[in-house]
């Protein structure tokens, strides 16, 4: 171990398989299909902030020829960049996960007023079941609230086609179009046929149209009227839109559904009549009423909120929905079948109790070191969104709140203001590099401006880890792997006015504890930047000079201190009293620790924790 050299980030671009020339069907994920659909639609500018399950769209899109793609600092900026590109008359794309649209909601609502020049599509990738999210909000509500049409594909093949439809609609109706996926569309792979390349009907260039683009109240009031007219036209369009379609079958049961729920309905009730809404908003009320009048009973099957159901009921059509279908979590064909028929499918095998396997920080993860250090401080840890949120789990258990991107700083400061001087030394905020750039900077400004003393710990691991290692402004590399200006986090903190900014190595736990103690006690704002690369960035994975660690079994006293790190490489081996004796341990020693050489990454965090000096480098041991 020793000094962690500051490694610049070279992201090697992988060229995508998705060839644009072949006409053969390809196996694509929903996200890959959306990227292809955007490319075939002639999209020139795409901007996004990474977020599961949306991330792969831009990662794939950026590999196409003749396009510009970027990681923006956050979703609001991403949407603004896409909107600007649309103003300049080119087709543009912004992609984000569901909670990202909360951040981008501000431009969204007014972009509905301005409308577009070049087609503008916004992807919202929702995450029912919260596979990788902090909530499972249903973003169809945004389409309604912002008065923007929304398309909802049910599989990769539709995802690609719907992109092309969305761009045509956007230009024809002068509106941004939302395309909503869910995890089971975004991360499902299916067969997709490549299609023809299309282009915008608009000419690129600067055009001054203040009555359309300057949303002063006087202009906005006029656009507001336009917006109503547009929605009326869209409602009419929905009636004949081919992707709103009825598949007639047995007329006893009629299902109204959209997105992936359509597939569950088809699997559970292959013979029933189905009204599939390719457009999730606005609704074709004529079509819905007509469909309802021709079936005995109407069922609305949708994940999460009763969005379709509420609107169908408002049309005066009676239907069954959420009294049968769960309003949280994902659906599947079995759940739908059971909900409608009331007959539970017999589970053949019940789950058996086995050890849980939760996600965990990797062996050698720099976050582990700093959170172990923080856990020694006995403070309230206002946390944030990233891999490091896993530090909330045992044995580190050192995160006490986690709400949304950037919230660590504001919430820590709010607690401090609530408690006054008593809070000194008792609260810290912890935030990752990418999250700090996303929306932590403004929180830090609040602390400085309003004379707080919060300690903010910024975890700089040179990447956006959780979403799959995207570069970000503080890594100085772009989405396509080009070297760019590195946004200096330390300089930002100083420029904001934080006088005490210290950079430390999170792998050196003892030193980190000392710095933490000094800074939390300081009655002034302070920032501690922990700098060490994520073990999964390519330079770290490729490095040859890794020195592994091992436990000398004869020295291990079985005190279990090292296990409190929670490193997956450190394993406890239990021994019986007889075995203990045979191994030369005291009879009451219950076991010993062992380091799994396949997993150890050589970070060295564990060695100084062992009071018995049992953990040493493998080199020293001569192995």
């Amino acid at each position, binding site marked *: 171990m020793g000094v962690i050299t500051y490694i610049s980030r070279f992201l090697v671009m992988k060229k995508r398989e998705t060839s644009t020339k072949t006409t053969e*069907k390809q*196996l694509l994920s929903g996200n890959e299909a959306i990227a292809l659909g955007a490319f075939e639609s002639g999209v020139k500018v795409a901007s996004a902030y990474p977020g*599961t*399950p949306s*991330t*792969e769209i831009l990662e794939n899109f950026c590999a196409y020829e003749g396009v510009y793609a970027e990681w923006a600092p956050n979703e609001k900026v991403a949407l603004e960049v896409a909107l600007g590109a649309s103003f300049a008359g080119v087709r543009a794309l912004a992609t984000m996960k569901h909670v990202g649209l909360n951040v981008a909601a501000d431009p969204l609502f007014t972009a509905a007023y301005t409308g577009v020049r070049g087609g503008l599509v916004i992807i919202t990738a929702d995450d029912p079941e919260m*596979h*990788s999210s902090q909530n499972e909000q249903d973003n169809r509500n945004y389409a309604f609230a912002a008065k923007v049409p929304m398309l909802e594909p049910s*599989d990769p093949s539709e995802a690609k086609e719907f992109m092309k439809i969305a761009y045509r609609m956007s230009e024809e109706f002068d509106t941004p179009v939302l395309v909503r996926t869910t*995890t*089971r569309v975004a*991360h*499902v*792979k*299916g*067969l997709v046929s490549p299609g023809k390349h299309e282009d915008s009907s608009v000419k690129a260039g600067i055009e001054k149209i203040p009555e359309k683009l300057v949303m002063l109240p006087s202009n906005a009031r006029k656009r507001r009227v336009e917006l109503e007219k547009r929605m009326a036209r869209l409602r009419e369009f929905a009636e004949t839109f081919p992707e709103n379609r009825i598949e007639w079958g047995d007329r006893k049961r009629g299902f109204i559904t959209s997105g*992936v729920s359509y*597939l*569950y309905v*088809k*699997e559970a009730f292959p013979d029933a009549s189905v009204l599939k809404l390719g457009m999730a908003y606005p609704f074709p009320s004529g079509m819905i009423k007509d469909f309802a009048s021709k079936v005995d009973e109407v069922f609305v099957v949708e994940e999460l909120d009763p969005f379709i159901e509420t609107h169908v009921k408002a049309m005066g059509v009676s239907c069954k929905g959420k009294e049968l279908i769960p309003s949280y979590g*994902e659906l*599947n*064909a*079995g759940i739908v079948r059971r909900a409608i028929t009331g007959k539970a*499918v*017999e*589970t*053949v*095998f*019940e*789950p*058996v109790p*086995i*050890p*849980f*396997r*939760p*996600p*965990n*920080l*990797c062996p050698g993860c720099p976050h582990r070191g700093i959170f172990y250090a923080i856990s020694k401080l006995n403070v309230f840890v206002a946390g944030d969104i990233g*891999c490091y949120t*896993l530090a909330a789990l*045992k*044995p580190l258990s050192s995160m006490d709140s986690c709400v949304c991107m950037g919230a660590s700083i504001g919430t820590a400061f709010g607690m401090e203001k609530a408690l006054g001087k008593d809070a000194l030394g008792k609260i810290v905020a912890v935030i990752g590099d990418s999250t700090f750039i996303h929306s932590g900077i403004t929180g830090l400004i609040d602390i400085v401006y309003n004379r707080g003393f919060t300690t903010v710990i910024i975890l700089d691991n040179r990447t956006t880890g*959780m*979403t*799959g290692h995207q570069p970000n402004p503080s890594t100085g590399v772009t989405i396509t792997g080009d070297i760019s200006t590195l946004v200096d986090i330390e300089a930002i903190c100083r420029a904001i006015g934080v006088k005490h900014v210290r950079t430390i190595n999170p792998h050196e736990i003892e030193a980190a504890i000392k710095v933490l103690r000094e800074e939390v006690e300081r009655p002034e704002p302070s920032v501690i930047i922990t700098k060490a690369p994520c073990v999964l960035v390519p330079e770290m994975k490729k490095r040859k000079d890794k020195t592994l660690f091992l436990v000398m079994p004869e020295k291990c006293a079985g005190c*279990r201190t090292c*296990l409190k790190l*929670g490193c*997956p490489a*450190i*394993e*406890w081996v*239990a021994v019986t009293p007889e075995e203990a004796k045979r191994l030369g341990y005291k009879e009451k020693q219950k*076991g010993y620790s062992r380091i799994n050489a396949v997993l150890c990454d050589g970070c060295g965090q564990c060695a100084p924790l062992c009071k018995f000096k049992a953990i040493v480098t493998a080199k020293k041991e001569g192995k």
Partner: protein
Amino acid sequence: MGNILFCGVGGQGILLASEITSFALIKAGLDIKKSEVHGMAQRGGSVVAHLKYGDKVYSPLIEPGAADIEVAFEMLESLRYLPYLNRESRVIVNTQKILPPSVTTGVEPYPDDVLAQLRGKGLAVFPVNAFEAARLAGETKAVNMILVGCLSAFLPVEAEVFRAVIKERVPERFMKANIEAFKQGREIIGNLLRAAG
């Protein structure tokens, strides 16, 4: 129509294995849908991929009790997804163990009767030491191809098709080892099937 459930631990090459299988099924003229989960769920946690094939596949998710084949890349994981299986299901289990946190920290033991538990349910169990087999094939990272080889014996696709897909999809320098691993996998399963009569 068939349902294959791949499960294991993040980083074991499950996605590539399910991908190769998907391509082989497609080459054989079948429709497929494959569902996987990325993001937080991957960080060393339990990972599962659903692969469904047939003339026309709607839902991307296998229903509980409906998996025809389970391919478990890690022994303990074979038990975790038990509710997806039925009495006719076949279970291919890599006998490799990756210890979950509660085991490494000594809170609870790793169950030592995983295969017995599976067999106790009347399931057709095919235990494979895929790590050792991959080592013999010359590439310890080819564990996934050993298991694809085993799985291929149960699918309506010729071995040739699989080989062609591996040649198309696996980088040149790993090809030989992967083709060899696939062959080993098929042999292993052949022997197990013969032994089972």
